[in-house]
């Protein structure tokens, strides 16, 4: 998955410092704005969201490109 780091994000969502349910909600809002094929980069520090955003991506039938970083400082790439 490391080669994906070079993927250019179309939309970046910075949720660092935010808590439940903001990272999840802001990710969803960005995914709604995105066009099919767009890459969304989400930055965050809320540990539960690191697990839950991938769950939402799966539920929405979208593509999880990568999850990087620690539980308290992570980056998630999603493709719509």
């Amino acid at each position, binding site marked *: 998955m490391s080669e994906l780091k070079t993927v250019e994000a179309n939309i970046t969502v910075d949720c660092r*410092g*935010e*808590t439940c*349910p903001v990272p999840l*909600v802001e*990710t*969803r809002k960005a995914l709604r704005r995105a066009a099919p094929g767009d890459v969304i980069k989400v930055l965050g520090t809320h540990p539960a969201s690191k697990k839950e955003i991938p769950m*939402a991506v799966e539920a*929405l039938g979208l593509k999880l490109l990568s999850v990087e970083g620690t539980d308290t400082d992570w980056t998630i790439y999603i493709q719509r």
Partner: protein
Amino acid sequence: MADKVTIIAHSGDMDKIYSALIVANGALAMGMEATIFFTFWGLQRLKKGALDKGPLSKMNFLGLGKWMVQRRMQKAKVASLEKMLQDFKELGGKVMACDMTMEIMGIKPEDLRQDLIDEYCAVGSYIQEARNSSVTLFI
């Protein structure tokens, strides 16, 4: 059974309105539909300027407990109820207002934030939503 959450917001307590909106927004964020039916004390929170005016459900201590909890929430960067309600609407959430409560409590449509309300209705409309929901909660 549709992938949908329907919540009755009966309580107007600040913490319970938080619970309703957090669950509803989580559902919307994860691809479900969500409806909140505001009734009784919950409907009071849809009056203009009243969204965050409810007491704490426990340890309110005439507002002192609420003040302390709000300070801790600010420190933890918990989003405001107003942001959560705006997000709820932006993600396609549906707001229903109980018209019997309006009659009992003498609330006129113009007392409420009409721009947010999708429907003024009664129990039949709630049931129509709930019968098609995989999750329904009474808060």
